């Protein structure tokens, strides 16, 4: 069966590092939310884990951007902001589609689809907020006013709710959903079947196969 490369190795490694650190952050962060988890906080050691994970969560992508392929990194960022008419169509068709309805009404999608774009955008914005407020809470206690700390806590929590909720959707669609059988594998092995690529990311498949043909020619 013909396969198409979807994610380079470095991208996959980056994804999993960020994913793992995010999970640690989310769980240790949740200890602060849930009284019944307090015993698991281990007298504050969860806080240490949170800080270590936060450093990884922030620093690894930064290093990727700095020492990786600049244009590819920018390409990722651009993806989040490239919106068009098809995205509107996607929103109309998606509810039925994801509840197992007729796939033919879905407009063709690029390298990532509209939903993924939305998630990606949330990741970027929420991470920026989490980073900024996190740094304030971590390093600026006693330096900035109590109000700044207080509202940082508020925003940090708010950003986490947004990101956390979206993460659940992301996890379900990429790992569990029957419509996306090759999604998880693609992030592990880097490849999807041509058929899958064509049906799920039509525009991208057309473009990449055109590129490939051009190269071969």
């Amino acid at each position, binding site marked *: 069966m013909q396969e198409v490369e979807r994610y380079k190795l470095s991208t996959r490694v980056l994804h999993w590092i960020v994913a793992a650190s995010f999970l640690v952050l989310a769980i240790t962060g949740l*200890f*602060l*939310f*849930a*009284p019944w*988890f*307090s*015993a698991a*906080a281990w*007298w*504050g*050691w*969860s*806080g*240490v884990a*949170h*800080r270590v994970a936060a450093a990884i969560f922030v620093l690894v992508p930064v290093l990727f951007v700095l020492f990786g392929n600049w244009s590819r990194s920018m390409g990722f960022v651009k993806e989040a902001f490239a919106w068009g008419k098809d995205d509107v169509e996607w929103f109309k068709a998606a509810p039925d589609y*994801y*509840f*197992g*309805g007729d796939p033919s009404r879905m407009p063709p999608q690029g390298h990532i689809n509209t939903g993924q774009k939305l998630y990606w955008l949330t990741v970027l914005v929420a991470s920026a907020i989490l980073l900024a407020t996190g740094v304030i809470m*971590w*390093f600026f*206690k006693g330096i900035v006013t*109590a*109000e700044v*700390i*207080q*509202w940082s*806590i*508020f925003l940090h*929590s*708010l950003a*986490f*709710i947004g990101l*956390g*909720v979206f993460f*659940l*959707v992301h996890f*379900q669609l990429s790992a*569990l*959903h*029957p*419509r996306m059988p090759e999604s998880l594998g693609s992030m592990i092995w880097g490849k999807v079947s041509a058929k899958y690529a064509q049906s799920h990311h039509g525009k991208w498949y057309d473009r990449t196969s055109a590129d490939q043909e051009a190269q071969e020619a």
Partner: protein
Amino acid sequence: MAKAILYDATKCVACRGCQVVCKQWNELKAEFTENRGSYENPKDLSPETWIKMEFREIPRNGSVAWLFTRRACMHCTDAGCVTACPTGAVYHHDLGFVAYDKGKCTGCGYCVDFCPFEVPQLDGSRVTGLGRIDKCTFCTTHGLDRIGNGLEPACVKTCPPGALIYGDRGELVAEGNKRVAALGGNATLYGENELDGLHVLYVLTDSPETYGLPKDPKVSAAATAWKDIIQPLGWAAGGLVAGGLLINLIVARARQIRAEEEK
């Protein structure tokens, strides 16, 4: 029946017996201090120092006045720390004051950030965030519970000039108002209505600011927002989405199987 401590600044002589006995009863360590050009020490409250006396020199009538103030947990009714504490480690005792259960504390430090009086203190590493938080427990620390055993708090017990009294809050408010009326002038009773009522009441000869107390302390809107918006929002959003996703999964699976069967 809510209990409280009445601190009468007109009777306090800053002997600091309360500071020492608090450490003795609650088994707190001495801190390393140095003389910083003042009688005051340690520098501030800390997990090892739950009460300290403040000394203020202010000009008065061409001479000087030396004002003494008790600095310790005010045991608010509308308590920023209780509002902000995610785990219930800081909580309202049945008798009204703010107790603290070390066992439940995750060390997040939100109580430190949300106290309008900057009372709870975190002593730890800025880098790891690891550290101890502690504060006055109104002598209800587990194993050292004076109140539960029918005793008054240690500071009240030791106070030589009788500047501290312990009793039913209602009675102490009445007593405090009586003393303030007798003092006249700028005298005020601090804590009667502040933050819906403090469980440490202050008889002051002058305005609260003169004694370094905030005139109109408020729990930050951020604390309320955090407790009343973020917490429910978080659980609601998380719950709804998780539920929705579960339904989606079941429906999508079922329809896909049906579609395949139809094929």
